[in-house]
């Protein structure tokens, strides 16, 4: 029984108690916000919050019937790829494809606008484009 008590005590002691007040504050402060804003302030976008703003802006501007998204101008590391795939779901996302298939839209992160594309929407921090066919 002593060992069981010690184990329980140890499990209780190593709880991340210090983060608890912060979690409660975050929950209370962000709960009234829309879902995307809650994600924007969360852990999953901490690696680059501007990037999530870009993804969400692009998602909301995607033309109806978009079949997939080609992503340009991102570092291409795992967190960037995973978050893009999640935000644009159910559409498949390809990283910097050489050519965009019919029905796909390019999402350009940053200010660069490559030649040979037709810009559909441009909001400074990003743009949506399709290939000139």
């Amino acid at each position, binding site marked *: 029984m002593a060992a069981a008590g010690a184990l329980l005590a*140890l499990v209780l002691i190593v709880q991340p108690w210090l983060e608890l007040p912060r979690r409660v504050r975050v929950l209370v402060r962000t709960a009234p916000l829309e879902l995307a804003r809650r994600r924007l302030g969360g852990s999953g976008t901490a690696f680059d919050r501007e990037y999530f703003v870009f993804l969400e802006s692009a998602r909301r501007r995607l033309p109806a019937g978009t079949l997939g998204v080609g992503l340009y101008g991102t570092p291409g590391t795992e967190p960037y790829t995973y978050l893009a795939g999640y935000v644009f779901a159910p559409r498949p996302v390809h990283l910097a494809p050489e050519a965009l298939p019919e029905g796909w839209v390019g999402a350009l992160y940053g200010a660069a606008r490559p030649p040979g594309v037709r810009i559909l929407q441009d909001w400074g921090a990003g743009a949506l484009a399709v290939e000139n066919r």
Partner: protein
Amino acid sequence: MSVFLLSIARVAAVAAVASAFGWAASRAACPPGREFRAERAAWAWAIAAALISGLVPASFLAGIEPGWPGLFALGVLAVAVGWWFRVPEPSRPSSTAGAGGTGLAVACGAVVALGIALYLVRALTEPMWSNDYVAIWGLKGKTIHAAGALPRHLFTDPAMAYSHPEYPLGLPFFYAGVAFLTGRWDDHAMALVFPIFQVATLLGLFGWLRRRGASRAVAGLAAATLACFEPLYSAFLTGMAEVPLSLGLLLFGSSLSDAIEEDPGALRRLAFASGLITATKNEGLFFAAAGCLLALAFGGARRWRCALAALPTALVVQAAHVLWRGRVPLRDFDFSSFSVGRLGEALAAAARLPGAVGWTQLALIGVLVAAGARAPESRWMLGLCACGMAAYLLLPVFAIRGPEWLVRAALPRTTAGLAPLAAAAVGARYARR
């Protein structure tokens, strides 16, 4: 707050309705009576999760959109099966121990409540965010919900290979099911299901230990320790498959033990849990096979019945996946890469992981196992834990990105998923038979 609370209320309503069906259907798995009540609640949620998850592929096959009519149809069918095949009252006397240690039991109850409250806060602080949630489980669930189908690109597009097409679809279907039933994809409110999985696991653990003769104090201590076990009930694991799998493994282990002991309904419970764990995570099939082999090796007169209950449903679930998505190889492993050096690297990396606190906890668990009685129920749980630990330690040897990478990335969370089984194994050694 009101929008978020409304979303939470929607998810809670889905969970409540599905659990009500699950409770009625669990008559086919659990005998009636007080002795089974806590465990039956755990089974009710497991069946509820299976109903929500199964609703999605069943609706797709029927050519209808998943929704409340489909859930009601499935639920009524499950209730009918539960009534038709209800398990009779056990003929042998109850082995539930007396109240004993009431003060300690009350204190443990308070700690359990604290553990649940802590996990509620951790799980609901923000939308589900961990790497594997975003890249695998949530991505597939969101895709299935938004597409209203199971798009082929999830399995055939090389650019989506990071989402592990070879993983089972139980959890993505479950997420999609909740989203269809609530009418929206809300990956924040949906996190509520994780504390519900925790509560079901604690009920399953407490109920099984009590039924196996543990005092309230012993069962309470086991439940309290598990409730506050942060490596499993963490913000990071919320959204991933470990918490649902840990409930499935507990139900599978307890059913295996019950089946060997000839408890009424145990073979059905074993078969159901076997399918559940296989639909949840890749290693579910491994655990089903391990349980089958353990039963064959040590199951005595009941060995064939138990072995036959432990594996076939898992194989059926696996076959359904292969039929639906085709055969997809494991992505992160090269099984020709074994070497003693890599094994040493994996074990050394694993030994560095727990740190002083972790090793102290493991040593205390070792003391508890050594000091307890050699209960047969405990041996089944420990056997499954040992099989799981061996597999989790050995797999990194074959990791394409190197043993140390997989040990660091996966071992803490995969082994944390064994905690409910370990708690049951330890608690059973202190049961008075």
